[in-house]
């Protein structure tokens, strides 16, 4: 006994004399076109996302309120409080300014040591306008004049704006009482990290 399958053919009437009145017509026909490749070719840009769509990772040892040690830049060796990770993946951190002269600044995750010292930052409100475009270096490029005339760019020196000062004050005023609560934390943030004889970073517990 065969299992019932839906009928594969159907008989349709056909006109014409001496044609044999019906034809058996297949209901599921074979494809009329076969593509030569089994899977369509992927674009050359397949899997390559633009920077803005990259997946940002954050080391689990870095959480808001962690004290970080900066390893590069003019503030190398200084200890800094981590606030949040920005959309570009860089870390937003602040000195605070009164303790070690580090303003609200971005740091790269790879060039930072995360210590196990953490401050509870849940009550600190960081203004929303502090994002990557706020911190990005400004470049004025409109050399409609000849190249020989202008060789120094218009904004070589960094100028402190009032907005930066205000934002710094707003964030630091919330942070400083939290830092003052923990004994010796102020002095710790003021000090710098350095290696000396017999100190091996791979053996240290941060």
């Amino acid at each position, binding site marked *: 006994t065969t299992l019932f399958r839906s009928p594969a053919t159907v008989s349709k009437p056909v006109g014409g004399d001496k044609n044999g009145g019906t034809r058996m017509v297949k209901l599921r026909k074979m494809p009329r076109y076969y593509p030569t490749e089994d899977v369509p070719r992927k674009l050359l840009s397949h899997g390559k996302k633009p920077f803005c769509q990259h997946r940002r990772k954050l080391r689990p040892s870095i959480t808001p309120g962690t004290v970080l040690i900066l390893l590069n830049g003019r503030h190398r060796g200084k200890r800094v409080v981590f606030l949040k990770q920005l959309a570009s993946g860089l870390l937003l951190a602040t000195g605070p300014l009164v303790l070690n002269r580090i303003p609200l600044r971005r740091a790269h995750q790879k060039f930072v040591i995360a*210590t*196990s010292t953490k401050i509870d930052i849940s009550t600190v409100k960081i203004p929303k306008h502090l994002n990557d475009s706020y911190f990005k270096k400004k470049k004025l490029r409109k050399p409609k004049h000849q190249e020989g005339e202008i060789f120094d760019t218009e904004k070589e020196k960094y100028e402190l704006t009032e907005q930066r000062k205000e934002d710094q004050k707003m964030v630091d005023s919330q942070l400083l009482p939290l830092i003052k609560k923990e004994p*010796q934390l102020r002095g710790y943030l003021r000090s710098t990290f350095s290696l000396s004889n017999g100190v091996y970073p791979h053996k240290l517990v941060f």
Partner: protein
Amino acid sequence: TTLFRSFCSRTATMVFKRYVQIGRVAYISFGPHAGKLVAIVDVIDQNRALVDGPCSGVKRQAMPFKCMQLTDFVLKFPHSARQKCVRKAWEKENVNDKWALTRWAKKIDAKDKKSKMTDFDRYRVMKAKKMRNKIIKHEMKKLQKESSKKA
């Protein structure tokens, strides 16, 4: 000079002070049971001993002498005594508390704490040492001044 002394008068100064004996408490220096105390229950052959540490979490087993470091404590039980007897002797002598008071155990503890210091701890230690040294120097200078005045 100590070797010469021990040749001359064997009874006065012995080269070795701690012996492998039944009941000797040993500290395990490496291996899966590193850092624990055990009592030697019996000697199996030249390299191994039957060892038991009922109050330190070491099951009765054979252990090579190489990983054992003898302590000053000796318990009293007969050879091949069962764990219950070893435990009774251990608790009677109160080995765990006596061990914690020894300098050896305190040094182990200090080394352990030092290796676990975080960056913040290191800063605090530095500040504490600085404060202590300042006080010591101050007192030293005072004493030096007094003695130089007398002279």
